[in-house]
């Protein structure tokens, strides 16, 4: 009996010993910034590594940031304003996935990574606001989201010609959905183009936006939604509306007849996917603007369609050179599953958004550039309280510049918005849609 007992104790001890896993030690990781395959030697740039936890480190004089990270898979990213080879101030963004391995287990493993930095110019025509999440119905029966709109803005002091501009939405519509464009290693399979899903819209007339001015484009329903849904917006005076029933986008609930009959204010659509409504996302909208010479016939050419998502769901291939601006938005409850759909040169970050509450994603004011404009003296309104930090302490965002853009514009100021091609810095979640008075 005693022998049995001691044997049992030994076996138990052994089991416990084996079940204890050796603790993994943090590894030394270096990240080298590069640009055009050449080391980008600049000191003081903050490199962020995010994964199960977020770490930050600053680069040394050689452009190398050093971290001490547990084993795992992370996203390393960097965003800053820099000076490119020609001495022009540009936005620099970089994002890459890194896998930190245990050097003890595999002495040949390397934990040194390169982070390519892409420099891109800010553009004159930008997306100022995306309102696509909908609001609560009056009787609390759910969300009403057929009142979407997008605002395009001329961010410079000269008039811009937006006649050839097209608006598309990225595919997959939801960033947290499974994405066929991700390969087994967790990388996007496209690097220099974006897929526009289901169709895109273009203008039928000459569109010229004056300096520091906007156009409001109603995505569904250029009508006054507030008569039924008081939390919604009144789009009956939108500048343009996406309304083209003959294209095949003819779903009655998405496209009621607009309140105005001027055909030049109707945008036309090119539809190449299935369905009677243009698919956009309520949770994680991903609109982008691009310029095409022949929007009506671009999708006829098979070379411009990509069928990775299926033969019945082709996506138009919008090449990097044609893209003007884009905004990646992730849904806050689904942040963990969200994967970026935009290439770093268009948007290297993401804005955080909660749908169904009437919030919109609104661009931050470029404090330096706006205050530098002489005509703005005394017209700028500060103490901006329109963000969502108060309602969402963890993920709510507000304009770090503190400038209340809409109030300032009402005061006659000219606002220059921040455009670093990184939505994490460029946008905040606004509590109330800007066109709602």
């Amino acid at each position, binding site marked *: 009996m005693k022998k049995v007992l001691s044997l049992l104790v030994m076996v138990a001890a052994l089991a416990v010993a084996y079940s204890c896993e050796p603790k993994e030690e943090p590894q030394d990781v270096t990240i080298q910034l590069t640009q055009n395959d050449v080391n980008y030697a600049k000191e003081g740039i903050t490199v962020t590594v995010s994964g199960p936890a977020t770490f930050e480190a600053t680069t040394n004089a050689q452009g190398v940031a050093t971290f001490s990270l547990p084993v795992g898979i992370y996203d390393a990213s960097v965003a800053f304003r820099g000076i490119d080879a020609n001495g022009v101030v540009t936005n620099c963004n970089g994002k890459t996935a890194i896998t930190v391995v245990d050097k003890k287990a595999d002495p040949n493993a390397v934990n040194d990574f390169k982070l390519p930095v892409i420099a891109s110019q800010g553009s004159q025509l930008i997306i100022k606001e995306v309102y696509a999440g909908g609001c609560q119905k009056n009787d609390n029966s759910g969300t009403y989201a057929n009142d979407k709109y997008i605002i395009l803005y001329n961010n410079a002091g000269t008039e811009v010609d937006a006649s050839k501009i097209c608006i598309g939405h990225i595919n997959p519509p939801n960033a947290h959905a499974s994405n066929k464009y991700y390969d087994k290693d967790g990388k996007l399979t496209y690097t220099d183009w974006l897929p526009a899903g289901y169709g895109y819209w273009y203008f039928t007339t000459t569109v010229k936006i004056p300096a520091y001015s906007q156009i409001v484009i109603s995505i569904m329903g*250029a009508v*006054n*939604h507030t008569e039924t849904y008081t939390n919604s917006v009144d789009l009956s005076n939108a500048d343009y509306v996406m309304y083209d029933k003959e294209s095949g986008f003819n779903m009655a609930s998405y496209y009621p007849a607009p309140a105005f009959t001027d055909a030049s204010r109707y945008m036309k659509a090119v539809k190449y996917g299935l369905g009677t409504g243009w698919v956009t996302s309520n949770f994680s909208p991903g609109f982008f603007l691009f310029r095409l010479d022949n929007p009506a016939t671009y999708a006829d050419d098979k070379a411009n369609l990509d069928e990775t998502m299926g033969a019945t769901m082709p996506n138009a291939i919008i090449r990097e050179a044609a893209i003007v601006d884009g905004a990646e938005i992730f849904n806050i409850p689904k942040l963990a599953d969200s994967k970026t759909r935009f290439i770093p040169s268009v948007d290297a970050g993401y804005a955080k958004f909660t749908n169904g509450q009437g919030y919109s994603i609104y661009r931050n004011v470029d404090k330096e550039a706006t205050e530098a404009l002489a005509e703005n003296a005394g017209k700028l309104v500060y103490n901006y309280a329109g963000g969502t930090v108060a309602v969402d302490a963890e993920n709510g965002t507000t304009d770090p510049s503190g400038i209340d853009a809409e109030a300032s514009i009402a005061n006659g100021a000219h606002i220059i918005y921040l455009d670093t091609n990184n939505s994490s810095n460029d946008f905040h979640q606004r509590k109330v849609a800007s066109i709602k008075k």
Partner: protein
Amino acid sequence: MKRFRILILSLAALLTGFGAAAQQTFTLSGTVVDKGDGAPVEFATVVLSSGQWAVCDAKGAFTIAKVAAGKTTVVVSCVGYVEDKREITVSKDIRNYRIQLAQDNLALEGAVVTAQESSSAATTSRTIDKTALEHVQLMNVSSISGLMPGGATANPSLTSEQQFNIRASGAEEGNASFGTAVEVDGVRLSNNAAFGQFSSTSQMKGVATNNIASTNVESVEVITGVPSVEYGDMTSGIVKINTRKGKTPWMVTLSTSPNTKQVSASKGFGLGEARSGASRGVINSSVEYTRSISEPMSPYTAYDRAQLSMTWSNLFNKGAFVATPLRFSVGVTGNVGGYNTKADPDQFKNTYTNVRDNVIRGNFSLNWLLSKPWITNVEMNGSISYSDKFSRENKNYSSAVGKVELHGSQEGYYIARSYEDDPTGTVLLIPRGYWYNEMVEDNRPLSWKLGIKANWARNFGKINNKLKIGADWTGDGNFGRGVYSSDFATAPTYRDWLYSDKPFMHNLALYAEDNVMIPVGREGRLNLITGIRQDRTMIRDSHYGTVSSLSPRFNVKYTVFSEKDHHRDFFRALAFRASWGLAVKLPSYSILYPTPSYYDRNVFDSPTDAAGNSYVAYKIMPRTMEYNADLKFQRNRQSEVGVEANLGGMKISLAGFYNLTLDAYVYQSEYRPHTYLYTQTSAVSGCLIPEGDRIYSIDRTTGVVTVSDRTGTYPAMELPYIVKNEFASRPFVTNAVQPMRRYGMEWVVDFPKIKSINTTIRIDGTWYNYKAFNANTTAFYQTNLPSADGTPFKYLGFFYGDDSYGNGRRTSNVNTNLTLTTHIPKVRMILSLKVETSLLKFSQAISERVDGTPRSYVISDRNDLLSFTNESLYEGEHYVVCFPDYYVSFADPTTLRPFLDDYRAAIEAGDNAKAKDLRGLAKLTSYTNTFLPDYITPYFSANISVTKEIGDLASVSFYANNFFNNLSQVRSSRTGNYESVSGYIPSFYYGLTVRLKF
């Protein structure tokens, strides 16, 4: 028809002539007593193989007169006792024949909890008796499918509709469950009077078994082979449910399982005797209440079933009926209940779905034993079943702009009007805001049946012959109003269509069957059953008129030797059987009168005014053909062979079957060219009339939109329009050209009992194969894809079979079950462990033509649809394309043009617009593994059941399904993905039942 009548009459005359010749007859009389205490068993039934019967009186005595000389089988049965079957030779009067019946409980050796083959039947037929039903704790009668060979257990559910599927699967083509007949005590439950269940997306389903009470079921017989001709209007087998009859003590059951609670009570009251000594009969009454919820976490959405049934049966054998006793029974069953989500607090306020499932069934049956030389007995039965399946659904709506709904059914152009302006609501404008609307379906089907059957049993020397002739008259109809809304002013799009408008469907069936038993050699027996049935379906004043169909059926069974003489040898019994038959399934109203569909084209939207209203105009076109004059009735051609053997105590039953479903009902669409006028919203921009004064109207025939001024200041303005050409669809019901093929094998092996552990082992299983592909020409049109030039799509393609890259499927399954039953009579307990395995589960999409030429092609480059390789479709990963055989264009809708030739020519000529349009008609697979064979790795599930009797008073049963809680994964060979096995086996579930008998 005339020839048939002559045949029947001459057959009857011939046999009557035979019968006139004298035959020696004797009397058989005796008593039936309880084996345990010797008490007489009143109401025990004694039946001879000739069909002659007698019922025991209060002293247990019975007499059968005019028994023909020779061998006959005596079967004695009574509710609560085990059936006693023996063979005797009658050569003189037999008196004082004493039969002892054993009480049917677990103290008895030989209790079985599995389905037993009916050895006397010449086709595949299985009976599940009371012990097995109690052991399985029946809640929904469709659960007995798990007791069939290879059957898989499913957790009982009442909140979703359950049907029987015999030798088929619900996911197959050919309306498989619709062809399975269900009878309760001879009352046929019919789904023929159902409307709106057949559409392009759903097959016609069989009758739902949810409202059949499960606690007073005495036995269930499932005939999966070729049944007797007395059963008609079925193609895939029949399930016969027999409820308890006869004098029984009080039986109270209480049953519980995670989703369902049930309580029931029943008793058979003997009414004693009248002064004249005649019995007053027995009343069986039973009451049952069942409540089933779909989600234990939210026990509000529930299905309730409250049932009361009463049956009075009596035997008349005194006075005028002394020599010719008459058994009579009449019963009524009422069921009140249904599905209700009203109380569910998780649903939005005031929204609910409520479906009534109220039924009242009445039936009578009469069995008159005449024992005359020219007729043995006459049976008459009738039944009527009336259901109320009233369903209501209340939904919440809201809209930012006025919502337009359609209710018009006349052809023409119409513009939206508010309810006040147009109460008929042709195009109804509902003002913006929030509202509720309740949609209702008033569905009240009625079925009735009247039947008469005459049997004539006669021995010719050693040959026993039984002739059966009968006639059935059935009717189906529906009194419901159909679908409508409680509040028309806010009703969503629907059109009035009365079910009660449609004429009743009547069916007159005549059948004759001859059953001959010929002894062969010393101990062999040859049983031949030949039958023919003619159904005449009459639908008065309808386009269908009268349709006639003939169903011949043959069964042969050759018993080489049976156990009686060989129970010490190794080869104890051997029998072979073969069957062939035709069965016809009558269509339901859903098939004869498919719900009319309307082709609604939006032709104009006025700009939305300040009140939020856009006056939307539609062109309404009723586009349904209410009948297809060439519609044939769906038939099943069944053939079967079987072997039954007993080798050293091991009982083996093998059956192979081959079924062909011919002329299956299918739902198809055809297209016609259609032209309409389209007015753009921007066309209003030139109008001078101020927005608030505009009245929009549309000409009903020409479709031109006019804007007029309410104040009369400005002249009315006709808006400019565009002419659009397209193809409009119209559905119809037709028959499938290519039959569905099902074949396979069923086996059951019962090993002899291992006495040391009181355990019997049974292995049963099926090997089942299915192949079907669509060979009907299907039209295909791209409704929402404009042509390259912006006009509506101008081509209509015609595919061979489905308008898809594949046009069929073949499957193959091997399911085997191992049942270990341990029965300990001393403890009165039976424990069974059943392991259900799926050894092979194979499925593959196919694309074929009847003549074997290719239908789809493998391509190497998905951007070039003509890059054919010559690889086989079914091996390797690649994209597959299928083209229509022909196409027509709107400009020339009658000329069929070859698709592939024109597509090639358009590409070579560089005609990009035409090539892009024609490409819209081609079907390309989205994945490269679409046609790969899909093998699901084998999986298993184990169930355990225990029943224990506590004295004679109570019994407790407990079962657990999937008690190993198998949550492993299976892998699909086609996609390479792993998925949880919980989609194939029941989730862990248990149930407990307590039965009291006093």
